[in-house]
Every structure is written in structure tokens, then in C-alpha cells.
């Protein structure tokens, strides 16, 4: 039987949420094709992996060997290509973020197989796959028909839903890839976590500030609103270029593309390059003193007014719902 393979991403003893989204997407393809759904994980923590059962995954190929302790794109993609070949995989699903994207590109070139990146929908029609992907920074999208013995896709995080669909048993099969030290071409020598801070890419709610915030000393207002909402903090490029916030918070064409359930834009005008990074959010709330600001055109909710007045009031009102 042919297989659908999804990458279960384990980072710092946590399964990344996007993995559950991939499982659900994979399960839907499995139901249509009658193929078997497989997970693949680079991990030594088998106990942790049990969590995938909740989302309906019942078999994992486990790569648990000290060579894979640290991430290296060449090494991981080589191992994955061996999994794909050995298990007769037809569909490979990976997350469309740093690691998933670079692994997928190498994997696709190695297997000379079609690969569509950053998909926002994936359906099967008569044995052929149709992927939808945003292009021109989300200003347009294409539907692409993909045919081939192996098909690779990266799925945009937060777009596919992770549906609970419990299964009883999880089978874990160990796999030892045939790799050597010279396959480990890159070494991560140091990594820094943004401690206690939610990344805009992973958050269900993002609150961003723009030039309207006037200076870095007022960003606590944005942080406070983010706190009440359980949101990550983002920024426009104007704010990042001014050095008020770090680049990893920038949303937009040259920053990150986010698709949260709610995006709150405070003192952001809504330039096309900013919209490119957040226009696919489910709901958008804009706070801006200029009623003609372009951000209001894409907003579900808007507050026309001074953010220094509006945000504290909004925080107060939102707190009432939290109690």
C-alpha cells in the first residue's frame, strides 16, 4: 500500500502544533486515497510522541540515533529521502517554515519529484493532487495540478485545522538511515530562544504596532493588549527600521507572513507590503486615528481614534470578558 508521510516536528521536548495540522491534512488524503498515513519523527522521546494518537495518527517511523541529535538540513533531508523510498511514500507533507521549507527543497531535488511550497489547501481529484498556494505576497493565488509518483508539499502553519480524532494504538517503528558524518554538512553551534515570548508565526492572535505608537517607550501598551488576548507581539517595518523592535517581529513582505485567527493592527497605515504579511488573517481589527487609512479597507472591525486613548479602554473592556 502507498503511504502518506507527515513530519512530526519535535523541538525542545514539545511537538510543534503545526504537526497536528499536518496529521489532519494527511488523514483527509488517506481517507480519499485509501493509503496509509505515517508520521516520521527525529526524536528520542517516545513517550512524548503518544500525543499524536489524539489526532488520529497510528504509526510513526522513528529516527532515534545520536547523529540526529542536532538539526542539519543536508542530513535530515537525506534521511527523509530514504524513508520516502523505503516505505513507498506518495505524499510527503512538511510545515512551511524555516526547517520544513529547506528540507522540502532538498528532498524534492534529490527525488526529482514535484514540490509545491506554502500551500493553503490541498485536495485530491482522481488520484491527482490540487494544491492552492498564494503568490505575489498573497495578492493572487494559483491552483496547481500535481502529478507524479512522489509529491511533496509544505503547508502554511495555522491555515489547516488540527482536528481531534482519537485512535487507540500507536505503533513506533525505528528506522536507521544510512548516513555518515559527511552528510552532516551544517552544524547549529548556538541557538537562542526568545524566552517566554510567543512567535508571531505560531500565535493564534497577533497584536502589532506601527509608527503610530510614536516610540519604543510606548510599546508596553501593545504588550499589555497582547497579554490580555494571549497574543504574540508584532510590528510594522517602520517600527523595525526605526530600531524600536527586533526584526523577528516584523510582519509583511520582508518580514513574516502570519495567518492568525485575529490580527490587531495599532497605528499601522496598511501599506501593501504590510498587508502582504497579514491579509489572510481570519479576523482583522484596526486601530488608527486616520479614518481613511488603507488598513480599514481590509478590517473586520475598526476603531477610528487615538490609540493612546483607545487601547487602554479596549483592554479594560476585554478584561471584563476574561473574568
Amino acid at each position: 500500500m502507498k503511504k502518506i508521510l507527515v513530519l512530526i516536528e519535535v523541538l525542545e521536548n514539545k511537538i510543534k502544533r503545526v504537526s497536528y495540522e499536518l496529521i489532519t491534512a494527511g488523514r483527509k488524503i488517506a481517507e480519499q486515497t485509501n493509503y496509509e498515513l505515517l508520521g516520521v519523527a527525529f526524536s528520542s522521546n517516545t513517550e512524548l510522541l503518544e500525543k499524536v494518537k489524539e489526532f488520529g495518527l497510528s504509526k510513526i517511523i522513528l529516527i532515534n540515533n545520536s547523529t540526529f541529535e542536532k538539526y542539519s538540513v543536508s542530513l535530515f533531508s537525506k534521511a527523509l529521502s530514504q524513508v520516502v523510498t523505503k516505505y513507498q511514500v506518495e505524499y510527503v507533507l512538511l510545515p512551511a517554515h524555516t526547517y520544513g521549507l529547506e528540507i522540502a527543497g532538498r528532498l524534492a531535488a534529490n527525488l526529482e519529484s514535484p514540490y509545491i511550497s506554502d500551500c493553503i489547501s490541498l485536495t485530491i481529484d482522481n488520484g491527482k493532487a490540487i494544491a492552492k498556494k498564494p503568490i505575489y505576497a498573497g495578492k493572487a493565488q494559483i491552483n496547481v495540478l500535481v502529478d507524479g509518483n512522489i509529491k511533496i508539499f509544505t503547508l502554511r502553519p495555522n491555515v489547516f485545522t488540527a482536528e481531534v480524532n482519537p485512535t487507540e494504538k500507536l505503533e513506533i517503528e525505528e528506522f536507521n538511515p544510512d548516513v555518515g558524518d559527511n552528510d552532516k554538512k551544517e552544524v547549529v553551534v548556538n541557538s537562542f530562544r526568545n524566552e517566554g515570548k510567543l512567535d508571531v508565526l505560531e500565535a493564534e492572535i497577533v497584536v502589532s504596532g506601527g509608527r503610530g505608537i510614536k516610540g519604543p517607550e510606548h510599546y508596553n501598551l501593545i504588550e499589555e493588549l497582547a497579554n490580555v488576548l494571549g497574543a504574540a507581539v508584532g510590528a510594522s517595518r517602520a517600527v523595525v527600521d526605526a530600531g524600536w523592535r527586533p526584526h523577528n517581529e516584523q510582519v509583511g513582505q520582508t518580514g513574516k507572513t502570519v495567518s492568525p485567527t485575529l490580527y490587531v493592527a495599532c497605528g499601522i497605515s496598511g501599506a501593501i507590503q504590510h498587508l502582504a504579511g497579514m491579509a489572510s488573517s481570519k479576523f482583522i481589527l484596526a486601530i488608527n486615528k486616520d479614518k481613511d487609512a488603507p488598513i480599514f479597507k481590509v478590517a473586520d472591525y475598526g476603531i477610528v481614534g487615538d490609540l493612546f486613548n483607545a487601547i487602554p479602554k479596549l483592554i479594560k473592556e476585554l478584561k471584563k470578558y476574561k473574568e
Partner: protein
Amino acid sequence: MKILVGISRVPDTATRILVGKDGKSIDEQGVKFIINPYDEFALEEGLRIKEKFGGEVVTITVGPEPSKEIIRTALAMGADRAVLVKTNSSFDSFFTAKNIAIYAKEFNPDIILFGKQSVDYDSLAVPAMVSELLNFPLITIVSKLTIDGSKVVAERDVVGGREVVETTLPCVISAQKGLNEPRYPKLPDILKAKNKPIDERSPQETSPMYEIINMEIPHRARKNIILSDSDEDIAEIARLLHEDAKII
């Protein structure tokens, strides 16, 4: 140092995108094309590496005839010469990567620099594919790069943090904003660029693996409930977030 930089031709990021007559690609009427913004960071870095270690900077573009305009800009910025693999197809990243790899095998670069993504099809694939085809190491989305002998150290943002990655030359690097400030060509450089060579080639075809069914402009109906900052209105917004968006 032999430095190869991949540059692609894309519509200006401020361009309004309209679907063309074929329903599968954009209407190019009146569209201004530019060097892919991320490729400017890649080129600038290539020029700085040359300034430091000596050598040659060659750009490569897989694209149509009018790509020569952006190639001239790259030459004016300081690239020594350029290669244009002429084609009209632009969606297939594997085709692009394959043709860049073919030239790379001939040129034997010490380093290949790309942008992190091209802002037309946003594929984020070519650098990884080229690195695999050449069996080179790969570091993507780099915002700081140091080369010391054959040792390469790069910094990049990853989900939830930042990491430092080490590798050795020859390697493939993809550039993120923040890596450097790209220079503006000066008038004498623009004139000089006119005489720099562009080596035109025909592509090696690969079997097509995709078919674009259609291109569409996404329409997301927004509620557009725009209120004032009065106490009542803000209470109403909070209520909507609670009852309508159900996020609190």
C-alpha cells in the same frame, strides 16, 4: 573567491496584480519589473566578499529576454559579468535550479548566494534545490554572514528564536533582509555596466511536473464594522471580539 549570485526578475512589490487573459498568469501590461528585493542583499553580500577576498562576482538569471534590464542594474551595482539562461517558463523551481546547477558545475563557485525567496511565486525552493543538486551545504534566511578561510558562520531567525550555523565553503546561502544595506549604483558604474558581458544560453529542459489550472485574486469578504473610540463603541468592539470572532 568565485562568487555566483542568483537574481530573478519580479514585478515591483507595489504593483497591483491582475490576472491575464489566459487566466493562469498575471497581466504584465504596465507592470514595472525589478530585481527581486532579497537578491539585492545576496548581490551586495557577494560584492562585499569580493572586496574583502578578491575574486569575481557572476550573476545568473533564468528568465526571459527583458531580464537584461535587471541584469544591467546588477552589473552597475558591481557584478563582473552575467549569465542569462533564456526561457519564458518561470513557475518550475526545479527547472530553474537545475539550470543554475548546470552553470555552477562549469563555473565552480566557492559560494553561491541567493535571496531567501522570489516575490513572484514565493517558492522558497531554488536555493535548497541547487544545494542538493551540487551536494553543497545550505544555510537559508541568513541575516549575518562571516567567512574565515573556508569556515562559514551564519546567523538566522528561526521560529521562536535565532540560531548560529556553521559550515564550510563551497556552500549555498540564502539572504534575508538585514544582511546588509544594498548599494545604489552611481552614474559612472551605470555607464560601465553597459560594456560588461552577458552570456546568453539556452536552457536544458526538464520534464514538467505541474500544471497551473488557474490564477485568482483572493477575495475575503470583510465585515468592515468601523466605529469611533467612544466608550460605547469600544465596548461594542470588545463584544464583537467575544461573540462574533469568539476569540475571548
